[in-house]
Structure formats: C-alpha cells, structure tokens
C-alpha cells in the first residue's frame, strides 16, 4: 500500500526495537535540534547588535544596542544628533520587525520542534528558516540602515554638508566626526551558533533517516 500524503510528509517511523540499540544514530538529530532551540530561546533575551559611536566630545562613546524587540542605549542622544542630518528617529525603523520578531522566532522554534518529528526531506524545509535567521536579521538591518542613510530630510540643518551614507552593519565606518564600530551581540552569536547546530542536526538526520526513506520506497 502506497504511503498517504501525511505519511510521506512525516517520513518513515522507526520501530522501537530498531531504535533501542542505536540511541546515538536516532537521538542525535533531535538532540542537536533541541540545542538549537535552546540557543534561539536564550538569544531572545540578549542583545543582537551593537553600534558604538566614537567622537572626541563623548569620552565614554555613544552606544546603540538592538535586541529582537527593542533598541537600547543612547537612543535619544543619537536621535538628537541625527536630526541635524535629517535622519528619521531610530524608533521609526523596523517597527514591524521589533513588534513581531519574538513571535516569529517562537514560530521558528516550534518548526524546529516539528523538524525533529519529521523524518523525511521536508525536515530541511522546517529547519532552513531558523537557520537563515541571523543572515535575515543582518540583511534587514542593512536594508533599514540604507533606507535611513539614503533618505535624509533635505530641509535638515546640515543636509547640504553630508552625503547620503550607509554605515557598515559590521565593522567600522565614518559619519561626520563619528567613527562607527558595529559588532554582533551575544544574541546574534548564539543565533548563528544555533544555525551551525542545525546544520549538524541535519547531517545526522540525513544519516539516520535517509536509509529508512530509501528502504520505504523500496
């Protein structure tokens, strides 16, 4: 009897007796996915990205930190300075992302949970969004920075003395008298580590279940 669509989706089940002797082979994919989920969940509470602005009159530098759902640091001071060049208030950036980011990540975690149960190639599809998350975060950040840096208010006090600019999202750049130093936060690093863990999980997933899938196809 040909497997149903549902059966094809979740892939072949492993018999208990077959499983008993091979704890690592069948346990590893789920274990690494569990680690990835924990890493992502922990990252929710940690900063994802830092930017430090260095200028002579700020001996302690100005700091901006992006979390999944909020900005912290010298936001008001940076906004105050940005008004000179006609940049919009930082709080206006990525409002959607900051409002729904936490839910999106929880959804990704739930998908990872399911990926552990799915023994077919569809598991890859459930892992990929979470795996790409750090890259998506940085890309989104870059797009917002480009948008803000290139859409300056032409009526701002110093609009004529500054060209549109896009500070690098990682590494150093220069804006006016400020040197910008951007670096990943511990949250982003954990999220990236989760991606690597997922890759490992997928390797073991393939090793454990591909033979079973092939066997089922017979």
């Amino acid at each position, binding site marked *: 009897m040909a497997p149903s669509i549902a059966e094809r989706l979740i892939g072949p089940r492993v018999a208990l007796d077959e499983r008993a002797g091979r704890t690592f082979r069948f346990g590893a994919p789920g274990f690494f996915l569990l680690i990835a989920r924990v890493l992502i969940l922990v990252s929710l509470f940690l900063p994802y990205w830092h930017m430090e602005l260095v200028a002579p009159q700020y001996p302690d530098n100005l700091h901006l930190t992006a979390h999944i759902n909020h900005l912290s640091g010298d936001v*008001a001071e940076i906004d*105050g300075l940005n008004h*000179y060049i006609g940049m919009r208030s930082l709080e206006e950036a990525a409002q959607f992302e900051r409002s729904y980011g936490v839910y999106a990540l929880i959804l990704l975690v739930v998908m990872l949970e399911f990926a552990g149960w799915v023994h077919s190639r569809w598991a890859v599809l459930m892992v990929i969004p979470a795996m790409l998350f750090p890259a998506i975060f940085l890309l989104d950040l870059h797009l917002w920075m480009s948008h803000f840096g290139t859409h300056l208010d032409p009526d701002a006090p110093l609009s004529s003395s500054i060209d549109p600019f896009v500070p690098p999202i990682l590494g150093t750049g220069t804006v006016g008298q400020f040197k910008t130093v951007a670096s990943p936060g511990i949250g982003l690093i954990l999220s990236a580590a989760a991606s690597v863990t997922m890759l490992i999980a997928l390797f073991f997933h393939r090793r454990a279940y591909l033979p079973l899938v092939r066997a089922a196809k017979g």
Partner: protein
Amino acid sequence: MTPRKNRLSRTLVPAAAGVALACAGGASAQSMSDVQKAAEARGLTTSDLLAAAKTYTPSGMKDEYLIFSSGGHSGQVFVIGVPSMRLLRSIAVFTPEPWQGWGYGVGNEVLAAGAVNGKENLWGDTHHPALSETAGDYDGEWLFINDKINARVAVIDLRDFETKQIIKNPLTISDHGGTFVTPDSEYVIEGGQYAVPWGADYAPISEYKEKYRGSVTMWKFDRKKGRIDESKSFAIELPPYWQDLSDAGKLASDGFMFMNSINTEMATGGIEDKKPPFEAGVSKNATDYLHIIDWKKAEKVYQAGKVEKIKGFPVITLATAIEEGLLHLTPEPRSPHGVDVAPKGDFIVVSGKLDPHVTVYSMDKIKKSIAAKKFSGSDDFGVPILDFDSVVEAQVEVGLGPLHTQFGPDGYAYTSLFLDSAVARWTLGGVYGAGTPEPDWTLVHKTPVHYNVGHIGVAEGDTVSPDGKYLVAFNKWSVDRFFQTGPLLPQNFQLIDISGKGTEMPVIYDMPIGVGEPHYAQIVKADKLKPWAVYPEIGWNPSKQELDPMAPKPKMERVVRSGSQVEVLMTAIRSHFTPEHVTVKQGDHVTWRITNVERAVDATHGFAVPAYNINLSLEPGETATIEFVADTPGTFPFYCSEFCSALHLEMVGYFMVEPAE
C-alpha cells in the same frame, strides 16, 4: 576611557623612547634630561620639580580632594580641586550670578527669601562653610554657609551644587559665628557677632548693656526635605559680648558647643568723641570669655516650651539659660579668633590673636568643673565663670597672631599665625601624644606663607577622622606673588604638603583667588560626594528637587492665551527652541515654562531674553518657570547663551511684543 589611555600613553612614551634612544643613539624623545633642560630654562629647583610632581594634574586626572571655600563678598562658594588647585566651580549663593542664571530667572525665589526687613538684598559676605556631617564626619550631602553682613544662612544641595534655601535670622544682623553643624547635622549653628537690639531695632548706643544682645541660633536641619525647618529652630540669648567663631563638640564633647567672644568689655567706641576706639576698647581686658553651651540640654529646654517669643522666634532667655545650667563662661586670651575642637572631642583649642599661645581646654575638666560648680565668679549678667586653671590642659607658644587650628590624623595640630605669616605645626598631648615623635604640647615647625594667613584647612581636618596629607593656607594678602593686577590684588591659597613629619611641610602650590575674599574653607575627600551628572528626569525642578508636573515636554510645546495671561510651553534641545516665535501683547502677563530635554552630560542650554533681564542656565533635564509682564514693546531675539553645539548661534527665536493701542 580616553583619559586613562592618555595617562597610559604618557608612561609608555618615555619607556618606548628609552628603547628608541638605545637603538638609534638619541633622537627627539622625552627623557629626564629634557625635564632638566626645561627646569633650567625656567629657573626651577629640584624642590620646585618635586612640588610640581605632587600637584601637576594632567588632563583627565581627577583631584583627590575638594575645597569648599567661602567666597567672601562675592557671596558665592568656590569649589577647588586638591592637589591641582584648579577652580572647578563657583556656586551662586547670596549674589546674582549670570552664568548660573542665578537671580535672572533661576533661584529668584531663593534670593527673595534673603530679603532684609522686606528689602531686597543681593549681595552677601560668605564666611564659614559647613559640610553636613554624619557621626562627626563629612557625608558629602549638604553644605551650609553664613552671610556675615546680614545674618543669613544658606543651604546648598551637593547633588546639583545649587543653593536651595536662604534664611534670614530675625534676631540679629551679623553672624560671624556661623555656620557650624552638630555631629549629625541635627542643627546648623549660627552665632551672632556685633551685638544689636533684637531684630536690629533702634536703640541708642548709650543703652548698650541694657538693650543690645548677643545670640546663638540653632537652625533645625530637616535632612529629608533638605531644608532648615524654622518651626523647629530656636535661639539662646547671650550677653552682648560679640560672640565670634564657634565649633560644635563631638565624641567626648558631644552635646556641647563652644563660642569665642571678643568684646566682653562691652566697649561702645566713639573715637569722634575722644572715647577709646573700638580697636582699643574691645582689646582692653587681658581675657575674654569662652562660652560653653550645652545645646542638647538647651534643646530639651526649648522643647519644654521654656522660651520667650522675640520677633516671633523662640528664644531661651539669658535668665533661663543660667537657671537651667545651659551656659558657662571661662576666661580665654583676649580677642580670640578660632575655637576648634580636637578630633576626639576631648580638647578645645582657642587662639587669642594678641597672645602667642594656643590655649587648650580639657572637656573632661570642664565637665568636672561644671558638676562641682567650681566657679571663679559670675559676669555682670550672672553667668557662672569656670575657674580658668581648673579647665585648662595646656598652653603652647606657637607664634604671633594665632588664629585658627586644624588637626592631622597623627597627633599634630596646625595653627595659622597671622602676624608671623606662617603656619605652625605643634603636637597635641593626651591620647594623641603617641602619634608624634616630638614631646607633647610643643611647637614643631613653622612654614612661612605669603602673606597674612587667615583660616587654614587640613583635609577633613575638623572632623572626627582627619586625613592630613594636605593643608591649605587661605592667605589674605598676596603682595608680590602674582602679576600686579592693579592695586586690587587677589588672595593667595597656598597648598602645603603635610604628609611628612617634623619640620617637613613645604608649600607646593600658589593659587590666586581674584573673586572676593574667602575666609574659611573645608576640604573633603572627593569620593564622598555623589553628584548628579544630569538631572534625574526630563522636567526636573531643581528648586524642589522633584519632577515638575507643569514642565513642558516634547510635543507639548505651545503658546496658550487666556485673556491677558499668556503661557509659553517651550523645550530646548540642540540646536533649537520650540516654539521659535512667541508673540504677545504689551501688558500681557507671561508665564514662560521651558525645559531642557537633553540627556547628554554637559549639554546645558542658556535662555537669554534681551531687554527683560532674563538669562537661564538650563542643565540637562532642568525645567524653569519665569513670570513677567511684557511691559516693553518691541522685537527681542532670545537665544541660547551657553555654547551648546555647532549650530549654537542658530539656536534662537523671536519674542515679539505688540505695542498696546
């Protein structure tokens, strides 16, 4: 932080230079021979270089101690760093001061409370600052200072270095004997000076003995509110002896206070009538009276209601003070200046200006004499006089014109010598004796100072735990020390290193004070203060030290008119005011509220309006309210008067007053 990096690079540069020299056989790099060359070029000696090394403070390095100095007739307080001797700030107190906006829209109500007999009085003669104390040690929270000319006391909050209260003494008109605090700052003590009839009312000087009175006022300090509470304060009537400097007891003498007096002769002058002038009459007797007051007992007497209301103020009369045993006198060398209590409270040191000794009284002996009623008599008013020989511990010959004494941590005491122009180091006896190699009660050394030293300050030198290390001589004359700035010369603050023992106490820095004549100053460890970098929240009202519910915030800016009342709600941020146009009609009553919404350290904005005598200093978060009648029609560009940003000059607006029909 950058400053630390700087310091590091300074130490690394010579080290690296040394290596470079070794390798390249000499190039342009700093070494001790450069130091020598620079010193020779300026004629500096090795001891000069040593003094420089002890005091030079490179950019970014902070001072270890702070001097809170009276500003004399400037009516201000100066804050000076030690050992750099750099002026860090002036604090406006009794006198308007435009930089701080003091009297030009900021602090007007505080200054107004200093009115004398209902008449605005906009200068002061600050003399004796007193830092608040906890258990007899500076706590770095509050500063009090007197105004000698009008008998007023001010309270300064050391969170924002701003004057919060000025209080006028209702009983007297001059107060050289203030301010001093009790060991937990329960009371701020204000001793009067030149005797006057109560409230400085009129009475002919021929009625001096009957009508003229001395007094000491105990201002209750409410630490929670940060204000003197007049309703819990009282005064004690004293004979018209021109009570002078005072000090509160501590530890062994806790509960007592001590006041000198200079005119127990009750001389009334009259040089024009060929009577002995004050300077002679007041100094006629060989001794004056040290006043010993049991203030804790006096507090109970006041609380029991045994007071008379004079000028609406509760006063323990002299008769009650005598009856209750609050007041005792004992002879002291004539025309004394300072009375200073030793760190453990056991000795009280008095300097008679015209006697080369300091006279040291024992608290133990005073207490025993009071208990045994060992009196040598009583004065004209019936105040018991303790027998001098029974209460004196020692007399130490220190030099000519001794004025004020401060204490070190190690058993040394220091006394300023006005006539000798020197600071004397001498040894205490008793439990302090073990700390010094020299015998007890002896003069050790005199360091010349330039010139005519008044007060001196030792780091925390009037507390229960003096730090020693630094002494500053507050010299009245500088004569030849600085550039001749015309015939009016600055005073000279001289820093003396007292960290050594014996004869080692060199002058290591001269600091001119070209703003008013300072008197006393206290030196506190800088880390005891916890000042705010910016006001805690946007919309802060410094005069109340709380958030002002009426403070304009961003997006609330507007001009509201109701009849002839106009309310302006304005914010200031780099580099604009909002709104920028304010138009009113001549005769309108304008209430102008303005908030500096900045959070960056040092982002202060000024708000200056021409023709209306307005200039505010708005520190980050501060809100201010000014009210005035727009009586002058015209066009008035208001602007930020504190260079705040690259577009500071552009931080401007127009206040337009339409002429009335």
